[in-house]
């Protein structure tokens, strides 16, 4: 059972901010990894915002998640500027390499694969983002090499 008392501290730290719910949820997600029912219930209790409203917000924005995710989040762009530069092939190769579809997490919990809307890096399309790092001018091979790098680094740290 996670230590929910941290939620009180997080909420308290936004006392002087008007309408801070999105900030609170960001910090809470950072703390607990994802926004579980018990975590959201506690946020509702502390902020006195109805749980239904909080759940509505938590499921509306793509940076929030109510399910556990992998250690690294891989966000691939497939919007038109990336698409005309071959993002479909890159995405296909990434799916093959990770053996998952978009929206899924690898069995070992290392990667979650997601779509992202345009990251505004179209001059070096196609692009992907891993956590808060961006990678451009991807080819299927380059994308796999980057992921392989993360995989080895991940296991070295473990």
């Amino acid at each position: 059972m996670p230590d929910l008392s941290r939620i009180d501290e997080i909420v308290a730290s936004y006392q002087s901010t008007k309408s801070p719910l999105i900030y609170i949820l960001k910090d809470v997600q950072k703390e607990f990894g994802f926004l579980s029912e018990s975590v959201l219930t506690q946020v509702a209790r502390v902020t006195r915002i109805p749980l239904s409203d909080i759940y509505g917000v938590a499921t509306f924005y793509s940076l929030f998640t109510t399910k556990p995710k992998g250690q690294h989040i891989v966000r691939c762009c497939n919007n038109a500027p990336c698409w005309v530069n071959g993002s479909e092939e890159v995405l296909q190769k990434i799916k093959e390499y990770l053996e998952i579809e978009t929206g899924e997490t690898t069995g070992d919990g290392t990667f979650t694969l997601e779509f992202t809307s345009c990251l505004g890096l179209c001059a070096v399309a196609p692009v992907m983002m891993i956590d808060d790092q961006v990678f451009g001018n991807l080819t299927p091979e380059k994308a796999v090499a980057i992921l392989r790098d993360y995989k080895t680094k991940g296991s070295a740290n473990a």
Partner: protein
Amino acid sequence: MHRMHVIIAMDPHTIAQGARSIKDALVKNLELAGLSNEIKVVETGSLGIYNKGVVLVVFPDGIYYTGVKIADLSEIISEHLVKGRVVERLHYRDIPEESRAEEKAPRFGKQLRVVLKNAGIIDPESIEEYIAQDGYEAYGKALTEMKPADVLQTVKDSGMLGRGGAFFPTGVKWGFAAAEKAKEKYIICNADEGEPGTFKDRLILEGDPHAVLEGMCLAGYAVGATMGYVYIRGEYYMSIARVRRAIEQARKNGLLGKNIFGSGFSFDIEVREGAGAYICGEETALIESIEGKRGEPRDKPPFPPSVGLWGKPTIVNNVETLATVPQILLKGAAWYKSLGTESTPGTKVFTLVGNINNPGLIEVPLGITLREIIYDIGHGIPNGRGFKLAQLGGTTGGILTSEHLDLPFDLVNLRSIDAGLGSGALLVVDDTHNVVELVQNFAEFFNHESCGKCTMCREGTGRLVELLHKLTSGCGAESDIALIERLASAMMKSAFCGLGQAAPVPILGCLRYFRDEFTALAQQKRQQIPANA
């Protein structure tokens, strides 16, 4: 004093190509070589050279190096920085006119830099450098010599049209809020940039954040606002950090806070982060999001200048709009009006993306043609392929084909072909792409980004994807094309907000010019229906 400066472009494009680690290695190598006191490494925003790897400029020589790797640093240091010999194999000579950092004249070839005049020239993390380029002069002038009504009138007279995509007259919008009687009013800078192919706001925020803040201060003074918010997309980590830093510097310098320069005017600015929702670029959805709610658009009217954030009069302006305002105040409404065309004064920042040799950010006076942008500034289409179509203004933008190559860009001309300037994204597509597959990509985007509030958009975008998938997977019929057209026109008439209303625009545009490709797919011999159809 430093004998030399090495400027490194630190924008998301160069970071995606490894600029951060190059900079760290360069600083470390200079330290090891004992040169830290002689040579200073400075980060700047985009230098306008894209897709050429990491870019360094050595001053005072003005030598550009591209494609710099960590392994090249010791040679650059020992040869150029120590001995003054240019490392020829990395030397980049084909510098686009607009990115020559040492040039001071504002006109570079076909480009004209007003909003981007500082981007890539000053250190965006230094308020002193901004001030040295006339920064905050307009604000000082407004507070000491002008009444709020004068500032408002100047912006009105300039004829400036908002650069968020709707091109609503900025001065008129401000006038609505100025006329409202309220203790609290707000200025919001809409930096929730998410329109595919658009990254102008990001590069303005990261290359010249103080210009945006100054624009907000002037807007605040003109309408009598007390507080400003910069709503930045959650994924734009670097923009968020740069703007936060700029706000702190402005506060320290007494440019934000209470009773600024003893003028009696109090104004402060705060950053608000988005959390990943395309729809929050819609101004009322954005306001809902700042209020900590789901970012779903509100009913209009009332419009934000009367009832906005927390129910108070609120101006929502785009980054590019706000960054232009200080220039208008400094140089005058007549100067601004003299740029561009009669219907659309000023310059416009475009992002040139897709199948193009020289992609990136450009600022040009309106009236320029597609041909000039693609072939002169963009250096044409790669691999000798032909031009098929361009989409102007983002994924909701209209479609332009080879028959429009010589049409001067302004609102009147573009409206005559059902297009607009939108966000300024210009997506170039070469002739190897099938238009129906491209349209399917657009439809998938809208389906993903529809907020789900109204039925027409939520269900309509999904149904469009299905119908297009039927065609591209070889299971479609000509009746499906007719259905796409009916659905599209129904969405344009009945969706709740701009997203659902504009989603069919590019689909209908492609149908108008490339109907034969749709028909060819519909008529092709039926294939076995794939399992996921």
